């Protein structure tokens, strides 16, 4: 009671007055703020380019600015010897657990989004933003099907001159398992690892934006013939997933790379638990 933050040997994690999560690195000068937002999906008759709808194939927000969740929400903190957690409730349909384990060099965001309300007849695409103090000069790195990391530059294509008319979707890239930021001036690096393939970008220097859930009411006319409006038990889908934040100094690049790769391997090939029931009255030794 009265606690406002959790911490381990690497991080201090707290909630600010806007209801955003703030992470401070204890050994490096990195600070990161995380928050949820959403885009409203474009709806049109698909007959002309400007009337294309956002759907299963294309992400096309109605506006390039995100919508915010109005109230700061509420949170509870649970502390123990192995793990410390912030349970945060952003709205009725967006919440998360932010978790740090003792001795583990990552922060876990275990988010739960849905069912996305569409009573207002507007499709919504939910994103989470991690905004850091890294100076990234418009560059970020995304993986390619879990293989090499490719350098991406905002509003840029390597083989032709481009002028993006739709800035947000034009800068979104597939993130199969990792997106990274580098600050060469201050020798800092920040990476986000996913538990599934998602879309992501860096719309501002120092920021990572990840799309976690979408519910759209109109087909985008690229072939599927259905709106991306999945439901279960008569409601929109509820999605639960995780992001893992890890970062540090580029001066210890080898050490950081080992930490990142070890975490990536452990997320991809997690331990498999099998359960063997035990009869309470059994005299058999376990």
């Amino acid at each position, binding site marked *: *009671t009265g606690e406002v933050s959790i911490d381990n040997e690497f991080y201090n994690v707290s909630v600010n007055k806007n209801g955003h999560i703030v992470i401070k690195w204890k050994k490096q000068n990195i600070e990161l703020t995380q928050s949820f937002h959403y885009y409203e999906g474009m709806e049109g008759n698909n007959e002309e380019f400007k009337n294309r709808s956002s759907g*299963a*194939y294309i992400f096309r927000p109605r506006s390039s600015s995100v919508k915010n969740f109005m109230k700061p929400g509420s949170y*509870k*903190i*649970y502390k*123990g*010897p*192995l*793990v410390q*957690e912030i*349970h945060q*409730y952003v709205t009725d349909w967006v*919440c998360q*657990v932010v978790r740090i*384990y003792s001795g*583990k060099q990552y922060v876990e965001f275990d988010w*739960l989004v849905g*069912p996305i309300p569409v009573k207002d007849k507007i499709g919504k695409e939910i994103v989470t933003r991690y905004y850091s103090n890294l100076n990234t000069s418009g560059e970020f790195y995304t993986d390619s099907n879990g293989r090499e990391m490719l350098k991406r530059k905002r509003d840029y294509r390597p083989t032709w001159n481009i002028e993006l008319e739709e800035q947000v979707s034009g800068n979104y890239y597939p993130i199969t398992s990792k997106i990274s930021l580098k600050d060469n001036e201050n020798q800092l690096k920040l990476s986000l690892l996913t538990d599934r393939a998602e879309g992501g970008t860096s719309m501002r220097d120092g920021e990572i934006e990840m799309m976690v859930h979408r519910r759209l009411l109109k087909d985008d006319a*690229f*072939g*599927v*013939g*259905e709106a991306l409006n*999945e439901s*279960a*038990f*008569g*409601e929109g889908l*509820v999605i*639960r997933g995780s992001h893992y934040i890890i970062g540090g100094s580029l001066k210890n690049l080898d050490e950081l790379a080992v930490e990142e790769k070890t975490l990536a*391997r*452990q997320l991809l*090939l*997690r*331990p*498999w*638990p*099998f*359960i*063997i*029931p*035990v009869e*309470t009255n059994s005299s*058999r030794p*376990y």
Partner: protein
Amino acid sequence: EKELEYFREAMGVMQHHDAVTGTEKQLVADDYARILYAGMQQGTNVSFQALRKWRSSGNSEFASENMYTCMQLNISMCLYTEDENFVLAIYNPLSQKVVSPIRVPVQQGKYSVVDLTDGNEIASQIVPIPESVQKIPGRRGNATDELVFFASLPPLGYKTYTVKRNSKNINQQP
């Protein structure tokens, strides 16, 4: 081999670009889920047989014991771990030693976790399952908390832990 074949077929189907990107029709998505589920069930049987063989090599008594897996741990749901006592056999598919946090959904209470390799009790912790997770449509069961402990697992090997509920009604204070 036959059971693995189901898994191979499922993975073959899932390589279609619609399955990879999620642009299939909803009925097709449901069918993919059905195929993948059946494949995973068959794969799980193979794992059970392997683990049973391993466990019974030292003691034939274990050869016939039942083993279960929980495919809904992603929503913190597992009916088998809601019992007062159970054994967890945890396999590490990595070729290196890992110390990994393990989370299993349990009912409210105080638990002890014993590493069967040396018989020592290891540190564990109970954290509540958020209400929003407990309210996920279709989620059943009585698990209100998650039992957390660190499993220290050998490369490409397994370890067993016994979990025992010592008392009920321990309230988690935020």
